[in-house]
């Protein structure tokens, strides 16, 4: 069962199709990205003997997991026709607080975690408030909080990374279930939860409506401001979780944590087929988007491509993935109109 909620499309489809059964061909048609990922994987496996080894594939998923968690949060925001740049700053403030409060403030780890994630949520609320109540454009509002959070992280830490981290982070870094690193499990669980929230709850359905056509949603009685505000809080929570995972990864509370990742997160979501105009998007696409982006850096590292080219290669992959999505939509529309006639 793939997603059925395609915003504007869903309205047409509802008339044509009843509830779909699992259908691999249909899945492929909905997720052209799977094909891109497979083809790219094929090319990589031919170029590098290491690529398909279980160690590397596990490593790849591990690296994709933090990006994936952030991208899941961002999916909500973008479906709601918003954008959240502050995810590039939230991990930094979360990281320095989560370690600093313990190392410098001598507070218990759990308390530092609660405060750090709480601060992340406050940033999300501030974004949502600025956008819905003050009417500031999402790009500008979150650009502001991006700068503020990074600035505060540097001010609090004094610009250096805070060490040594409490044992909790070393345990988190090494934690696994049946040999699967905990980060991958966290991503999997959050992906399932996100899918459920988007497709099976009133909030999820309202979100697609708000993102697809805000005025219509308003007239239908949806409290659009509340829905939008909530998407920024979700994105902030996801970025906060990522901040904790980054902290474990680098074993330091660093003000540089996650700096510059915001555009990569947005790229993962958009590659995954979520429309920047809102109203369309799904979880599987987002996770595949994160995996594809990670595959590019993995490829570069395995093949020893001169590093200056990695941005070029990533850009090319983004454009190809987006192009494929355009084709997919076109085919989809043609198919819809044929059925209708």
């Amino acid at each position, binding site marked *: 069962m793939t997603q059925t909620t395609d915003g504007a499309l869903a309205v047409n489809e509802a008339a044509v199709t009843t509830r779909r059964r699992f259908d*691999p*061909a*249909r899945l*492929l*048609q909905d997720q*052209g990205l*799977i*094909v891109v990922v*497979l*083809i790219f*994987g*094929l090319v990589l*496996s*031919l170029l*590098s*003997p*290491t690529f*398909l*080894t279980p*160690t*590397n594939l596990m*490593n790849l998923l*591990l*690296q994709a997991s933090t990006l994936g968690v952030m991208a899941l949060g961002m999916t909500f925001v973008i479906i709601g026709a918003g954008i959240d740049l502050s995810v590039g700053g939230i991990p930094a403030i979360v990281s320095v607080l989560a370690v600093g409060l313990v190392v410098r403030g001598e507070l218990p780890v759990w308390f530092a975690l609660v405060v750090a994630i709480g601060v992340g949520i406050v940033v999300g609320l501030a974004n949502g408030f600025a956008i819905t109540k003050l009417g500031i454009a999402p790009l500008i509002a979150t650009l502001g909080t991006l700068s503020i959070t990074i600035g505060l992280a540097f001010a609090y830490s004094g*610009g*250096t*990374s805070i*060490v040594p981290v409490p044992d909790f982070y070393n345990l988190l*870094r090494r934690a696994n279930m049946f040999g699967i690193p905990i980060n991958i499990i966290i991503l999997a669980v959050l992906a399932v939860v996100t899918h459920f929230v988007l497709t099976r709850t009133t909030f999820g359905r309202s979100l697609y409506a708000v993102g697809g056509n805000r005025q219509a949603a308003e007239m239908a009685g949806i409290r659009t401001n509340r829905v939008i505000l909530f998407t920024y809080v979700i994105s902030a929570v996801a970025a906060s979780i990522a901040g904790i995972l*980054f902290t474990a*990864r*680098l*074993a*330091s509370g*660093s003000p*540089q*944590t*996650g*700096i*510059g990742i915001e555009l990569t997160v947005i790229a993962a979501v958009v590659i995954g087929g979520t429309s920047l105009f809102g109203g369309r998007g799904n979880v599987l696409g987002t996770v595949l988007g994160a995996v594809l982006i990670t595959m590019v*850096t*993995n490829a*570069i*590292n*395995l093949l*020893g491509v001169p*590093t*200056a080219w990695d941005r070029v290669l990533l850009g090319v992959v983004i454009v190809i993935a987006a192009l494929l999505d355009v084709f997919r939509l076109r*085919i989809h529309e*043609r*198919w819809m109109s*044929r059925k209708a006639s």
Partner: protein
Amino acid sequence: MKHTAKLLTLGAVAALTLAGCAAGPADGDSNEGSGDLGDVAFLYHTLEFEFMVGIQAGTEECSAELPFSKTTILSAQANSNTQVTQFQDQLAAGAKGIVFSPNVSAELVPAVEAANDAGVPVITVDSLVADGELAGSVTFDNVGGGAVAADFIAEALKDEGKVLELTGPQGAFHAELRHQGFIDQIGTFPGVTVETRDAHFSADEALSITVDVLTDDPDYQAIFVHTDGMLRGVLSALEQLGLTPGEDVIVVGLDGTPEALDLVRDGSVAATVSADPIAMGCEAAQMMAKVLEGGEGSDVLVPATLVTTENVDDAELWGNKPLG
């Protein structure tokens, strides 16, 4: 439409099958050439300024003559997270040894430990790590570099005068050691006093600090900067203040970049201290080969060389060699 779906399915199946085949024989390749030393990765925190390009050049030059099966050189683009990813990728790819320059010492400890767990020897270049086991290290003699600069300045000032020291960020590995070497040595000349300011290795900050400090007190006769990249800022500041470098104030740098050597040639910079990165990159590659052959690594300090108008054209200076 059905055709498209079928085609896509077929394509995917074909891709998976082919991928499966490719993995089979290729897996065995990791053992090829059992006599050699295996793959070695050189993970540098950045390759975006000349000093690091010099390390890369030295690495490439010497690796070519060593029995590694493959050498990979990557830049982390000054991002610790990227560098950890590169460690993980190289370990997954079965690298037998890793040489690296840490982006931030503390943040790379988990990466070094991961290599330790995998039994892969790690050697650092240019800097050290806070924790984890190293098979060896190759660093510039930063303390010696600071001391050489101090001796030159004290002699030029005839043991009397005021010096402005513009440092790298407080707590940064290179900045701390250069400062320590400089201050300790200058302390042996009681007539020379030093004012130290943190310019974060930035030319821009060096400019504004120099203007501010010398406007407040024009009595400074020498300026020492922790890295040659800051020289441009100091020279612009002196120009702004209407002071002539070399006459009113002597300027001394550290690194020995090609640009700094040109500035020494035209007389605007009195001296720089050369820290041979080409030798560092080479030394690290050779040490890794030795470790992989079963030998012991060590902690090597690459010595500092004073560069003045007298020896600025010496072909042995790294700043006079073509890079890459």
